[in-house]
């Protein structure tokens, strides 16, 4: 992604957020509340104080990882929406291991999180395997697996793994306080947030700076081309899904080890589904999941303040998310074309001049860019990683 297109998508993102906020303001106004007051309350509840930030970051921590669970398979061209299932099973595995296996705290913590991630990875990896081997649609498959995972979770938590002392709310045996993940120094936020950020960073570097990442993106761009180029497509698809599932499983493990202290129904609150939102708003870029998760965490954190101060239902934040999400996705359509047309206007002239007569005879594809310059100078920014602008390909020929 070059600088200009990064600026482009940032502009589009900000524009869409503004439009989404305006629409939401209109909605709020229509039901008789002051939009300005609601905006101010959301800002105050999400970002204005250290207490608000703590609340926001606590909510953002799992969202970074569930965002990755969608974004990494998306880089391989797979739309996996079943992170919820990987998250609950990962959390359950972590809880079971941490409660039953004795050992030094740090080792058990690491082991429990690793097992959680492995279970999550295996669960979503299965989606990738079915996709690659049997052509099963990964979106539906992962969703079905997610429902199955939740049923398995309930079965185990209310069955063999149940703590007999948990009467009203079935839970696993509580984890020893010594094993709980503590807060980072200086802030009231647990280490899970740092783990999420590191994972996003690693995913971004692997995807954009290594041959594995490149192969994955080629597979995502065009599977047939990837197969012809001899890439191990099956392995790549499974690996991408498994990596995503591992992120979701880790999110579940961290929630258990840092927040709940046991696996119970509190784990099934839709972090996996909000992760889809995170990944799409981050344009499937792992590192961008971090600020997006913080933004969504902030909006969600403001819910209780909205309820207390303005007497609005807590679903208000859900409405705001809906407006924002639709606007940001719709912004993919129109402004992109207008912005890139204006920016690349000089390049059109250059491309039109470059192919001189001999080149036009020698290479039959050359007249095409001159004939349809608009199509070519405005490549959709999402695909540029795999499809370099044709103008640069043609110049050496002429």
């Amino acid at each position, binding site marked *: 992604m070059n600088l200009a297109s990064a600026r482009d998508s940032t502009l589009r993102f900000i524009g869409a957020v503004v439009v989404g906020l305006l629409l939401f303001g209109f909605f709020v106004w229509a039901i008789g509340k002051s939009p300005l007051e609601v905006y101010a309350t959301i800002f105050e509840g999400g970002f204005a104080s250290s207490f608000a930030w703590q609340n926001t970051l606590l909510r953002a921590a799992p969202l970074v990882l569930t965002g990755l669970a969608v974004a990494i398979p998306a880089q391989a061209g797979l739309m996996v929406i079943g992170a919820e299932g990987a998250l609950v099973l990962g959390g359950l595995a972590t809880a079971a291991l941490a409660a039953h296996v004795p050992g030094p705290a740090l080792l058990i913590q690491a082991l429990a999180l690793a097992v959680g991630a492995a279970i999550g990875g295996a669960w979503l990896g299965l989606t990738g395997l079915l996709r690659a081997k049997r*052509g099963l649609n990964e979106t539906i*498959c992962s969703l079905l697996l997610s429902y199955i995972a939740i*049923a398995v979770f*309930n079965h185990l938590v209310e069955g063999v793994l149940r703590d007999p002392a948990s009467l009203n709310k079935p839970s696993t045996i509580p984890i020893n306080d010594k094993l709980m993940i503590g807060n980072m120094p200086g802030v009231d936020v647990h280490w899970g947030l740092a783990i999420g950020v590191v994972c996003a960073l690693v995913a971004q570097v692997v995807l954009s700076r290594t041959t594995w990442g490149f192969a994955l993106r080629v597979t995502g761009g065009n599977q047939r081309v990837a197969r012809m180029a001899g890439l191990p497509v099956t392995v790549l698809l499974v690996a991408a899904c498994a990596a995503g599932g591992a992120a979701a499983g880790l999110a579940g493990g961290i929630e258990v080890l840092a927040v709940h202290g046991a696996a119970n129904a509190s784990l099934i609150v839709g972090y996996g589904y909000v992760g889809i939102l995170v990944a799409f708003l981050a344009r499937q870029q792992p590192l961008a999941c971090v600020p997006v998760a913080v933004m969504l965490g902030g909006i969600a954190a403001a819910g209780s303040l909205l309820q207390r101060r303005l007497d609005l239902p807590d679903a208000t934040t859900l409405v705001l998310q809906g407006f924002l999400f639709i606007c940001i996705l719709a912004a993919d*359509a129109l402004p*992109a074309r207008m912005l890139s047309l204006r920016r690349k206007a000089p390049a059109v002239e250059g491309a039109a001049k470059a192919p001189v007569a001999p080149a036009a005879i020698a290479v039959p594809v050359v007249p095409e860019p001159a004939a349809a310059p608009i199509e070519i100078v405005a490549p959709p920014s999402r695909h540029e990683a795999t499809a370099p602008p044709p103008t640069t390909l043609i110049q050496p020929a002429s």
Partner: protein
Amino acid sequence: MSEAWVTVLAAVFGGALRVSTPFLFVSLGECITEKSGRVNLGLEGTLVFGAMVGYAVSYHSGSPWWGVLAAGVAGVCFGALHGWICSLPRVNDIAIGIAMMILGLGLAFFFGKAYVQPTAPRLPTLDLGGFATHPAVRAALQINVLLPIGAAIAVLIHIAMRYARWGLVLRTVGDSSDAARALGFNVNAVRALATATGGFLAGVGGAYLSLYYPGSWNEALSSGQGVMAVALVIFARWNPIGCFIAALVFGGAGSIGPALQAVGVQSGYQLFNAAPYVLTLVIMLWTSSSERTLAGAPGELSLTR
């Protein structure tokens, strides 16, 4: 046959009849949408919003049928919005669907807070079990008139897809937008219309949830029928009659757990909740292969490519 078996079978059958109606409507809606070449994952939001609107209108007007109609109209609005946004270039229909789901749930919970308490008039019951002596059988045969209406709609759609002009236009648009364009059809308009129609059916399905079974409005009303619709349509191979059968199968499979619980089987009933999902997955596995797309799938559908 022993008494317990009759009870279980009747409960599963009755559950199939009772639970299948929202499945039927929402999957018919999804079927029409997908036949036009688009996926609407947001039907869950439409369903829940329809349930809320149906309940609210039934409460205020005193007639549940006004509620059903209002739920359908609300569904049309959601469908039309989805159809319009997806007409824009480079917009992903799956992602927009998830956005619409969040918006629909948000709006439903937002406006629905006021309707959790009051009791609205419910849809009437059709008692078909008068002849039976066994109480469980008689209970199982109490159905809602929306079920036969839905079945009739399924047959109607099936015939229209085959023989009616608009059915052919819909299938052309869904199978090849280029061919449709060459024939002079407005592809985006047809798809938006199909999505809006699908939204109507999903909204009606939601009204069934709040006005008949379970028959009250709360935030945990839907157990994901809207999302499951996509799987159902695949199970049905994009065939409306198949949607009816699929809805019955899903409704019945979901009732196995509670039915066993009722006769005293205590362990493992949680796993039965997963039965419909496992069934779908197995059928998808069984009928798919990596060499070809699923038979009957519309050519333009992003899901199956």
